């Protein structure tokens, strides 16, 4: 079972179809599977439902798929950094389902973990709870949320071995590990591709069972959305 593919295009071969649901890892532009997203753009697949915490920015990340109008619906928690998104949404060209960030993360984890629904305090008494079951446990109200499962998950990792075991770096971990568990076809782009045995088995975050295909992206470009610095103290 060879998991490593020569290119993003090859890794996506045979898995894309119009109308499908894709999960894309990342928070803002941090830890996004940008090379795989570009290949989705090149494929021309359309009417996509995309589950991702954010929608990229104009010209980068999922912003690329907005430009080409390949996305029909976004399931996200925050989309504030994208003007094109706002235009398409206000024009009624794009559907949008907002989830509280923690609810979104937990729905994805639940989908991968065989849990069809769970209760959470988040959003009780707000628009988010409308139409959903609310139930009292031990004197507090909780809203029922359902698991999310996709056709394809695209994730970014720092290191991966050829068995699909993945390790993430710093806050680039974010949504990637849950999304890796919550689809039938998880495809990973890894910055460092190594042989089995190179990763300490206690450090692996995503076991290889979840990763069906992978590509090596040694020189991947990483963007910074809000560069903030402090002054160096005088020497």
């Amino acid at each position: 079972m060879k998991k490593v593919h020569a290119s993003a295009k090859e890794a996506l071969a045979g898995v894309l179809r119009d109308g499908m649901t894709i999960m894309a890892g990342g928070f803002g532009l941090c830890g996004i599977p940008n090379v795989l997203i570009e290949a989705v753009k090149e494929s021309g697949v359309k009417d996509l439902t995309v589950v991702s915490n954010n929608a990229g920015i104009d010209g980068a990340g999922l912003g690329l798929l907005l430009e080409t109008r390949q996305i029909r619906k976004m399931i996200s928690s925050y989309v504030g950094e994208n003007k094109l998104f706002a235009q398409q949404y206000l024009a009624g060209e794009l559907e949008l389902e907002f989830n509280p960030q923690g609810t979104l993360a937990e729905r994805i984890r639940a989908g991968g973990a065989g849990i069809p629904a769970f209760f959470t305090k988040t959003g009780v008494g707000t628009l988010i709870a409308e139409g959903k079951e609310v139930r009292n446990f031990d004197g507090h109200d909780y809203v029922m949320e359902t698991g999310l499962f996709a056709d394809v998950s695209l994730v970014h990792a720092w290191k991966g071995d050829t068995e699909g075991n993945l390790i993430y770096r710093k806050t680039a971990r974010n949504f990637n590990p849950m999304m890796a568990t919550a689809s039938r076809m998880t495809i990973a782009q890894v910055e460092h591709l190594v042989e089995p045995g190179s990763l300490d088995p206690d450090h692996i975050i995503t076991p290889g069972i979840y990763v069906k295909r992978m590509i090596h992206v040694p020189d991947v470009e990483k963007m910074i959305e809000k560069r903030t610095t402090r002054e160096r103290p005088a020497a």
Partner: protein
Amino acid sequence: MAWTREQMAARAAKELRDGFYVNLGIGIPTLVSNYIPEGMSVQLQSENGMLGMGPFPYEGEEDPDLINAGKQTVTELPTTSFFSSADSFAMVRGGHIDLSILGAMQVAENGDLANWMIPGKMVKGMGGAMDLVAGVKKVVVVMEHVAKGKDGSESPKLLKACDLPLTGTQVVDMVITDLGVFTIDKEGDGGMTLIELADGVTVDEIKARTEAAFKVAV
């Protein structure tokens, strides 16, 4: 006469305790980290997946893999740990974080909070705000006491009931504005109480600029 942003942040920092784990929202709440008392151990949580958040990096040392929930570049500390967003919100929702300090558009006298959406305007999304106010042990709002319109008109933000869509119901424990500090008995029926005045501000001035009913205990 009213408190500056810095003074409001300094006042919020008085709610910190040694050993606290704290989540700070964007804006004035971020400034609170500048007022952590010397010798007090306070760890900052960033809901994208980090505990033990350090200051902004020196120029040239920014790491695109190391950002906070506001998408700003930050740094590590010796105490830092990283985890997934699911694990991060398990921490938030599970009641493990001691204190959340965040901004608001409106707060009602029963502790209802609105800070994510103005109908008719473009909606950016709630991000992690709903999870934070639902899950964190103590929620402190830091905000301007009133909203100012483009025409210079004022509208109160401390209300009998919020008219904007809610972020959470009965979630706010304390409100720090440029005029003073209020506590809210969010789980009982003790309502809202004014407990401190900014320098030179009077109770009458606050009453005039507040819709919510409140007791006075300054």
